[in-house]
């Protein structure tokens, strides 16, 4: 089953994302910010990355940009969790190489639906 890297500095969101995805049978590794995520992504190849945008140390957009630079992550779907007000963030994310986004607030069903969209 596909493995997913879930990145969010908020523990409750991270738990929610991780719990939902694990429930659907995915293998999930959690990271607390961009720096943590990048380290984890280098140690193991994930099939998909789901990241929050606003984070300390390294934000989601920089993370996506950095990951896209790695050969292993050239074509890996990367989704960002963003709020409806963040249209400019979506643009910045796309420019950095994000595959798509999940609009916050979202519920577990929406999350799974979106993940299925990229992982099947």
């Amino acid at each position, binding site marked *: 089953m596909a493995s997913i890297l879930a990145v969010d*500095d*908020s*523990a*409750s*969101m991270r*738990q*929610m994302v991780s*719990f*939902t995805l694990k*429930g*659907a049978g995915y293998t999930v590794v959690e990271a607390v910010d961009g720096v943590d995520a990048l380290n984890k992504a280098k140690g193991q190849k994930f099939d998909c990355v789901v990241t929050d945008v*606003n*984070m*300390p140390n390294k934000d989601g957009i920089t993370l996506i940009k950095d990951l*896209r630079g790695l050969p292993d992550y*050239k*074509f*890996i*779907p*990367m989704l960002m*969790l963003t*709020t*409806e*007000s963040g249209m400019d963030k979506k643009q910045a994310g*796309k420019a950095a*190489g*994000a*595959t*798509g*986004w999940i*609009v*916050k*607030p*979202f*519920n*577990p*069903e929406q999350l*799974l639906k979106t993940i299925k*969209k*990229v992982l*099947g």
Partner: protein
Amino acid sequence: MSIDMAQFHQVFFEESFEGLDVMETGLLNLDMGDVDDEEINTIFRAAHYIKGGSGTFGFTSVSDFTHVMETLLDEMRDGRRQVTQTAVDVLLGSVDCLREMLTAISDEQDVDEARVAEHKKTLEIELNGGEVKTDSATETGSEAVVSEAGTITDSSVNSDGEQGWHIAFSPHAHLLKTGNDPVRMFRELSHLGELTATVDFQGVPGFYDLDPEECHLSWDLKIAGDIPEAEIDDIFDWVEEECDLAIQPLSAKSTKAEQSAATQTVDESIQAKTEKTPLQAETAKPVPATENSKPKNDKNKEAAKSGAKGSSSIRVDTGKIDTLINMVGELVITQSMLSLVGEHFELNKLDQLKNGLSQLERHTRELQESVMNIRMLPISFVFSRFPRLVHDLSTKLDKKIELVLVGENTEVDKTVVELLSDPLVHLVRNSLDHGIEMPADRIAAGKPETGTITLEAYHRGGNIVIEVKDDGKGLNKDVLRAKAIEKGLIDEAAILTDKQTYELIFMAGFSTAEKLTDVSGRGVGMDVVRRNIQTLGGNIEIISELGKGSTIAIHLPLTLAILDGQSIAVGDERFIIPLGAIIESVNVNESMINRVAGKGETFRLRDEYIPIVRMHEIFGVKTAQALKLTDGLLVVVEGQGMRCGLFIDDLLGQQQVVIKSLEANYRKVEGVSGATILGDGSVALILDIPGLVRLSNQ
């Protein structure tokens, strides 16, 4: 699949409260003249997080409220809005309001809607009346247009009875590098209806020019079925900018046979590049927040219900848990070693057994320490609320005060931390209100205009000491004395030491404030503070110098679960006296003993007369060996500033005991604060010294 979101609520609340603290600290740290971008960013992130979380977990009124704060902060962050003191104050107020909302929701109480609405209005006024022209009005306008257009498109589709869509999709070469994959998109489309795809190879370059990481194909897609356009849009939502896309409804009358012929016309229509207008593209976006964020109190409560059952949890540093796991590992090794020894025990294995046992003892002790350590929290949990308190109160009182925090990382038991908060607030308020003088008075007294309040925590022995120090006017002994006499608390002729005079302020019904303010001085106060501290097994002392300031020091045990005790023997019974309460132990001779008719026995220790408590009488121990005072020992103990001598048979060892509640397992017994289980399995009662002293003085 359905997931119970309530399981995440507890974490969400904890994080939200932390976020609020972060916002508060950040806001207080903001320097109007020179605003630190990172500070604003941190505040923004906290607000952003609370908004996102509350939206996700169904607390719409919270997310609605935070949204306004977030917008305000966002403008500050982008430099579109000046950071003003008014704005900061409004935000601080909102933090309070938000905290109340979250507390109410997590406690399953009603949210004070009126207060929330009022605060939100203040925020909105600040947002709109600030120094920046917001474009929120235009945004709302365009949203309205969008949704209108959306309805029109959708309804036209339905009324025409469209049977499907024709999609011309030419991805740009770099599409794959965003992690998007046409094949996956087609798979999604095929879930919606029957999909026919025709690929166009024309864009593919010659073999030598071919970059396998680029996409040079384009597709002609037909999808049959009654599908809302929004669902098609959804699938292409992420790649809108990475492709040329044209979505056209199939002709209503086109039948299967006619379809090939129809392709021609459709192609023409593509060439006409009737691309979707941006306006239509917007229709796929989620409903504007305003629509689903009306405060729904019931729903909020519903959502909170199973999440917060008043359970209290604690965040523990992973390092501490690792230590614990390590210790348990060691313990398991020792245990297996011992069981090996025990399996075929011979006398020559005695050394091994002794070794094992001493190892077991060491590991158990370390394990105990590590477990206790888990409950330890830095005192900063209490201290962190004071910058705000001092900020607010000093503004209110027109005083200039600087707060200095020292030793914030000093760790103390969680229960102590929680119970310490209120007494400390009271003490700091007192210092602010009564201690520090008005700026003018300070200058007149030759002091710096700005007063200083220092909160300091440090460890001393098995205790934690917390000091509240101010450089204000100090306590005036004459005023205290006059006041106490006026209130009838002491006799006019009473001779008091300095210490006793200062301690007058701990007496019930004593307040020196010339007028009562809402900051402090409601008459109930210091007596309650002292009682609370004593309940925690601590004591409180005052050092003061007129004109220079006062220091109030609170001494507390580090933990409430373990006690350093002196075990004593009275007949067959064992009792535990908290070590800190013991002054000394003495043998008395007949000449020291006084018997006062109707007032019991006292003995003279240096120049002091100390009442005697015969333990065997109070606790009905029939096996007591020493019945004459000269045969046993008198342990002098102190509680609530008074002393008494406990008459016992003998002193045994000192040891740490684990406190078990007697009230929870039996009922409250006067003179006893709890019980513990000794090494031999017997139960020993832990003496409540203040209670016994009270008894003896009656």
